[in-house]
């Protein structure tokens, strides 16, 4: 093989595909691509052949048949007369609910623990280390099962609240009842109900919810505008106007007005027959799964946060102190913005892990996507391949959405290289 480039006037010959450096890499890539495609085609074809040999076809029609089974936790109205498709959507919503709540709680917990591990207090820091090591090094499924067993065995059945002298009584101002089936929490009642907006497909949203969303989002943007104006004044005059009380008012006063207008109040759960009614019963399966996912993923996030903070060199905070910045300003303006660059990429992985780990829900009978589409629906229809393929696609799409969202955030906190 010669390294000298060939004269340009040489006519193209087939042997050049192997011997000419300009073409060689391309040749090998094409060969590998063909081999990969052939393998994929062979796998798919083999599957189709074997299905045909068993007399089975590949058909998603089962999604439009009556499901016939009930689901304990339904974010949208669902009865056993609905299609398997709707059962699948209910399961998907359950997955999304537990994933979002898990991500939020795990982030809060992880950041607190991660910062606490860097505490000057020796005992406090060691305790946090113990927490992180215990939760990080035991499989999640075991945590789910042990927490479930604790909830099942230690909490009383609802009947323990019955009678004139019950063995158990409700906690938190008589509002919350812990049982071995669910945690009964108060529901929100309204004296001035504005009615609901019908979105079709038997899904309704109360106007009050929409009003609160509008007010909160509006408040957030108003706050941003106020801060921008304060920054502009500071740039012009060097004096920063006091904004905290205006921001606080913008964020809270409209919500308080709405609460007063709708007459929001708590409806405490009461024992009715076998179970509590009137409030909201958070099933133990949901509480346990959420708790386990939070504690487990929180331990990983704590390590990520700690590593991110340690990655910012000590000189940065010393320089900030030398300029006279207070510790909390130093953290917010100097250390965290730099630490976030290190924190966010592994944090994306943790969110993805949490979402995928939520499919362990079946261990405690929480009917998520895996429990509905990949569980009962798969069983009752016998469409294993279709159900599993569809489930893989849904999880893939969810993961890509989380990744995309976090990547947008990441690009905003990245070092701006100019």
């Amino acid at each position, binding site marked *: 093989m010669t390294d000298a480039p060939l004269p340009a006037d040489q006519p193209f010959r087939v042997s050049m595909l192997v011997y000419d450096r300009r073409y060689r890499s391309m040749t090998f890539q094409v060969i590998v691509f063909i081999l990969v495609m*052939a393998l994929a085609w*062979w796998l798919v*074809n*083999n599957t189709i*052949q*074997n299905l*045909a*040999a*068993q*007399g*089975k076809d590949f058909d998603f029609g089962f999604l439009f048949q009556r499901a*016939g*089974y*009930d*689901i*304990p936790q339904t974010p949208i109205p669902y*009865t*056993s*007369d609905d299609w398997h498709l709707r059962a699948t959507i209910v399961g998907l919503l359950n997955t999304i609910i537990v994933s979002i709540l898990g991500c939020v709680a795990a982030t809060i917990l992880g950041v607190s623990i991660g910062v606490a591990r860097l505490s000057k207090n020796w005992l406090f820091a060691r305790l946090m280390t113990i927490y992180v090591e215990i939760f990080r090094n035991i499989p999640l499924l075991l945590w789910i099962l042990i927490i479930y*067993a604790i909830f*099942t*065995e230690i909490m*009383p*059945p609802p*009947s323990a609240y019955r009678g004139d002298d019950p063995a158990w009584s409700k906690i938190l101002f008589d509002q919350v009842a812990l049982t*071995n*089936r669910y945690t009964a929490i108060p529901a929100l009642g309204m004296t001035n109900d504005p009615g609901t907006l019908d979105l079709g497909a038997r899904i309704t949203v109360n106007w009050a919810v929409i009003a609160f969303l509008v007010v909160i989002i509006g408040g957030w943007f108003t706050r941003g505008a106020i801060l921008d104006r304060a920054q502009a004044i500071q740039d012009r005059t060097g004096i920063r106007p006091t904004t905290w009380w205006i921001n606080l008012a913008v964020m809270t006063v409209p919500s308080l007005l709405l609460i007063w207008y709708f007459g929001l109040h708590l409806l405490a759960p009461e024992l*009715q*027959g*076998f*179970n509590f*009614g009137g409030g909201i*019963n958070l099933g*133990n*399966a949901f509480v346990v799964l959420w708790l386990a996912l939070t504690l487990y993923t929180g331990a990983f996030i704590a390590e990520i946060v700690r590593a991110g903070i340690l990655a910012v060199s000590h000189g940065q905070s010393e320089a900030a102190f030398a300029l006279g910045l207070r510790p909390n300003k130093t953290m917010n303006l100097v250390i965290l913005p730099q630490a976030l660059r290190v924190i966010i990429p592994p944090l994306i992985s943790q969110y993805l892990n949490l979402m995928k780990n939520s499919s362990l829900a*079946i*261990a405690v*009978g929480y*009917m998520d996507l895996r*429990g509905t589409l990949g*569980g*009962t629906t*798969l*069983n*009752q*229809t*016998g469409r*294993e391949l279709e159900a599993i393929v569809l489930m893989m696609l849904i999880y893939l799409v969810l993961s890509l959405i989380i990744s995309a969202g976090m990547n947008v955030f990441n690009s905003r906190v990245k070092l701006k290289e100019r």
Partner: protein
Amino acid sequence: MKKTVFLGSIAVAGMAAGMGMADTLADVKARGELNCGVNTGLVGFAAPDANGNWAGFDIDLCKAVAAAVLGDPSKVKYVPTTGQTRFTALSSGEVDMLARNSTWTFSRDTDLKLDFAGVNYYDGQGFMVPKDLGVTSVKELGGATICIQTGTTTELNLADYFKANDMEYQPVNIDSNAEGEQQYMAGACDAYTTDISGLAATRAAFADPENHVILPEVVSKEPLGPAVRHGDNNWGDIVRWTLNALIAAEEYGVTSKNIEELVKSSENPEVQRLLGVSGELGAMIGLDNEWAKRAIQAAGNYGEIFAANIGEQTPIGLTRGLNAQWTQGGLLYAQPFR
């Protein structure tokens, strides 16, 4: 040219894989072992004992088939399957037959491409509640929390029954019988529902079986039977007629005790054909003539199997009821051996 050879070989490989599924009898004989899909643990029907030996009503059927096909009832590999994995295990060829309290339904027989080889237990779905709940009828369970095994017909029957009676309920989905037991014992559900035979078996495993009652209502028909893959009719016939042989043996009074004697002395032509003394029934299903004799010797006839595993003398304590011979007012009716 090369490409066509490649495609051709793939097609042949695919066909071969498909064909390989089709002759279960040859596969079992070549393997020297019967793979039998059973329950993960339901006392009386299929459960490993303290020494790890599987025993139970369904297990004995596996043994009878192994004895008929391989000549040795111990040549069985028991594959525990959950309600969710059982049919996949069968259609993928992981097991040769399924003896796992599975209900014979239209869609399983047609759409799932299974063949049910008969009914070895006529069952129905019921409900179990603790005695101190003070409930005497399912009609009083409105608003109750009920544990169900997910992926079973039970789940659908429960939804249908409560809907038909216009009652609310809160399902707690569980994955296995053991988990259901744990939840029920802890009081996490008011009632546990599954087939009545399963309830009796579960209750027998409790420390205080007398404190739990099985409510009188039977809310569904659950004919439980062994299943095989669709499309291998000869293998299906072997399983079907092995079960029939056990039922017929009880009807004609052939037991594992007197079978050797009857081979020599029986005057009944049907018994002679069943035991292979006359006729060529074995050859018709690709076995030798003593297949049914071996099957009956493996664990006894249907009545003996019933009495030993789930009968009234056992902790399970099930009466024959619907599962008595047709001559005794039950539903068991073996087709004639001729």
